[in-house]
């Protein structure tokens, strides 16, 4: 019956697996019907590496080849030998879940991906079985992007799991994933993820174009990709957002941005990103919007504090003492008087010490790291003041600066801030307030000159767009952010339709019936539910 159905209604075309290589082209190294030739070729190509296992089957008439280090022995048993034992099939070549190829190059590729090859003397086909073993850690919350409320999962080193996390969140056929093989020697898998119909096609084209330009032996982390494709490498500011949080990536994808993921790294790059996107955290959207706004303002204030605070202090102490109100002059003067060094040196030393403590704390194992933090922070801080090397005001200032620089939700931006402190300290030490203004202006000019994939870095402030300010300094209630921000260059504008119209309906209903019968309001709410769908 099935045969006739196919004969009558089918289109008589055989579907092929999606393959990277062109199936019609004659392969460069076709497989041979002679088993020994094939085996010799493989052995030669792999330079007789020790973990290439060749199991001779059927009295030397067939062989199963696999990389011992890449396959799961359990799976080999499950997929290849169990059907034989159970008597479902006569030969290994009859097992249906294998993929046949005549191309030895392809066989080598799949072997490297962890497949097992089955070859038989007298048969040209090479049967590939997917028996890859993989070791994954669980999808825990990333340690450097913790949130109080919200989802607590994070990306891992496996690309498939990462894409799975995204697909689970965006059940939409327009979510498109494109693989790229980058790295001439390492052959890494890079995935470009975007939502078709929302993301600007020219943006995708631009990113694809830049990705294809990469020619390197190794693409070992997103940091590599970032430096290859970002607009300005000579800049302290990161121009692509790095994140390990699926919810953050999802939100950015919906906004019309593009995510670049790579095998072997939990970090995802998001482009284009602006300065303000580094100050948004998924936490903001799980709080009341009042609190969200407050926290965000604090964060942005921390930018100013982290960059300017030591510089400001130095300028005041060494140039503009008159700025300090009368009552404060004496205490400040007292704390500085005993110090042998000029405030400039004092500040530089303290900032460098803080950086040392931080770096040491990261490298050391966790329990010792904390000890170092305490020893460095408390003991050195206290001793240095008592020894009269550094004034206690300076310790306060530097500690505040360090804290402020850690407030930023993005690690890259935080390092940038700490780096920017140094030139400003130097300028403040030489030119006072004018130096700070000068330095800050240079930073601002630099930021306005930056572009991330055709989007101005300071958007929506510098090309001022009042509508998009809803999600920068403040966080407006979510239903108010009904249009996508323009800096993502999204094609599709609207992101939230009328969702709170039930409120108005309720009100009008109440006005119509001052008694306010319960049925009416219920009806209104159900109506609005329909409309919001």
């Amino acid at each position, binding site marked *: 019956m099935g045969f006739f159905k196919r004969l009558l209604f089918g289109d008589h075309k055989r579907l092929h697996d999606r393959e990277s290589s062109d199936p019609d082209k004659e392969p460069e190294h076709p497989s041979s019907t002679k088993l020994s030739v094939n085996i010799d070729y493989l052995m030669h190509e792999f330079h007789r590496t020790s973990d290439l296992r060749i199991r001779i089957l059927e009295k030397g008439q067939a062989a199963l080849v696999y990389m011992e280090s890449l396959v799961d022995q359990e799976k080999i048993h499950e997929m290849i030998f169990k059907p034989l034992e159970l008597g479902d099939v006569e030969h290994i070549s009859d097992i249906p879940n294998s993929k046949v190829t005549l191309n030895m190059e392809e066989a080598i590729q799949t072997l490297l991906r962890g497949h097992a090859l089955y070859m038989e003397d007298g048969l040209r086909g090479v049967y590939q079985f997917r028996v890859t073993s993989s070791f994954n850690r669980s999808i825990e919350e990333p340690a450097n992007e913790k949130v109080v409320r919200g989802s607590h999962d994070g990306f891992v080193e496996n690309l498939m799991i990462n894409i799975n996390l995204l697909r689970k969140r965006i059940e939409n056929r327009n979510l498109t994933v494109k693989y790229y093989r980058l790295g001439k020697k390492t052959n890494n898998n890079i995935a470009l993820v975007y939502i078709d119909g929302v993301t600007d096609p020219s943006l995708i084209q631009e990113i694809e174009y830049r990705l294809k330009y990469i020619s390197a032996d190794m693409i070992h982390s997103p940091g590599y990709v970032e430096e290859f494709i970002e607009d300005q490498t000579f800049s302290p500011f990161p121009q692509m957002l790095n994140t390990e949080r699926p919810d953050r990536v999802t939100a950015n994808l919906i906004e019309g941005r593009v995510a670049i993921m790579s095998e072997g790294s939990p970090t995802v790059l998001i482009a284009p990103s602006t300065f303000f996107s580094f100050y948004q955290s998924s936490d903001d959207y799980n709080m009341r919007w009042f609190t969200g706004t407050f926290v965000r303002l604090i964060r942005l204030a921390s930018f100013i504090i982290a960059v300017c605070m030591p510089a400001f202090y130095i300028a005041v102490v060494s140039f503009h003492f008159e700025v300090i109100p009368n009552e404060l002059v004496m205490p400040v003067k007292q704390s500085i008087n005993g110090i042998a060094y000029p405030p400039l040196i004092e500040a530089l030393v303290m900032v460098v010490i803080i950086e040392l403590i931080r770096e040491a704390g990261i490298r050391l194992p966790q329990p010792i790291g904390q000890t170092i933090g305490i020893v460095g922070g408390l003991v050195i801080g206290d001793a240095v003041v008592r020894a009269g090397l550094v004034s206690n005001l300076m310790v306060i200032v530097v500690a505040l600066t360090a804290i402020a620089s850690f407030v930023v939700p993005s690690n890259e931006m935080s390092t940038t801030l700490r780096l920017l402190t140094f030139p400003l300290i130097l300028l403040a030490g030489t*030119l006072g*307030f004018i130096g700070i203004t*000068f330095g800050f*202006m240079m930073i601002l*000019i630099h930021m306005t*000159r930056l572009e991330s994939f055709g989007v101005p870095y300071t958007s929506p402030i510098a090309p001022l767009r009042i509508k998009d300010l809803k999600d920068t300094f403040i966080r407006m209630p979510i239903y108010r952010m009904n249009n996508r921000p323009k800096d993502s260059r999204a094609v599709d504008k609207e992101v939230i339709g009328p969702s709170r119209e039930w409120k108005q309906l309720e009100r009008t209903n109440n006005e119509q019936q001052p008694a306010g019968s319960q049925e009416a309001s219920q009806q209104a709410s159900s109506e609005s539910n329909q409309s919001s769908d």
Partner: protein
Amino acid sequence: MQTQIGVGVLSLPSDLHQVAKQDGWISLAIAGAVLPVILFCLFLIGKQFPDSTFEQMTEKLFSKWGGRVFSFLYILYFSSVAALIILLFGRMISLWVLPNTPFWAIALCMVIVGLYLANGGLLVLARFYTMVSGLLPVLIILTLFSFQEVHLMYLMPIGESGISKIFEGASEAMLSFFGFFVSLVIFSEVEGKPRQKFIIILLAHFFTFFFYMITLLVSYTFFSTTELSLVPEPLLYMLKSFELPFVARIDLFFISVWFVSVATSYTTYLYIASLGLKQLFRTKSIKVFNLVISLFVYAFTLLIGFDVAKVDRHANVVVYGGYIFSFTIPIVMVVIILVMKPFQKRKEEAS
């Protein structure tokens, strides 16, 4: 895009308001009222040649070589204004903030900022101006601190100094609005309809006007007439006397913020001067000319330095140049356009 230019224009002349010691707020009001007429002239010129740059305009109006000479003169004028801005800035900084710092360091700051900003091109200029225009409210708020102690009586005998004096003051006051001329030079670089641009330029002008008016009124009502003649920078002296609970000496902050707006005006002059050079030499890159003009301006300012007499002489030259270049020539251009219009029409009909 256009609003940004507008904002750029309004932040332009704020440096000069310290220089022009206005005779009275009425003078300023008159100046503010007269200027739209000239702005309208500029608008007419810009409308006549919507697609051509300023240099092309002059070439069309004054024949090829005449136009080039004019363009060159304008470039000279713009760079000398830039130099004047640096000179005044340097003097102000050394008087108020850093008495011991040598002039070359202060000037170098300005030159570097200007060079870096101007190299970014018009778009970056515009974006930067939008960003720093957020500082203008800060300046205004700082100024408004002094409203606690104003004495409206000081304004009182209105019109005492006589009409001629007031008009003399008005012409002085106009000088502080010289920035408006920039709008003609970058008229063709900005997108949009001429009408829209004109409205934006007007808005920018009125904003500047109101900003001046506020500062002027505050300083006039704070100091009496006799005091005012003794105080060179009334606004700063006034701010100096105030004290917030956490900072004394607001004037230092005021100067720091003011530095930004001075830098923007300097950069604008630098940019239009090198834009002129670029069009004169018909090359693509503007960066070389930015560097050339910056070096020229820097060398020139180093020659003068803190020397007050020389600075004043230079300021006078620039002011008279301003009269010629910003008032006379545009009007002449309009007249020429109006005269030539019928001729051109006849020519077209003939052909």
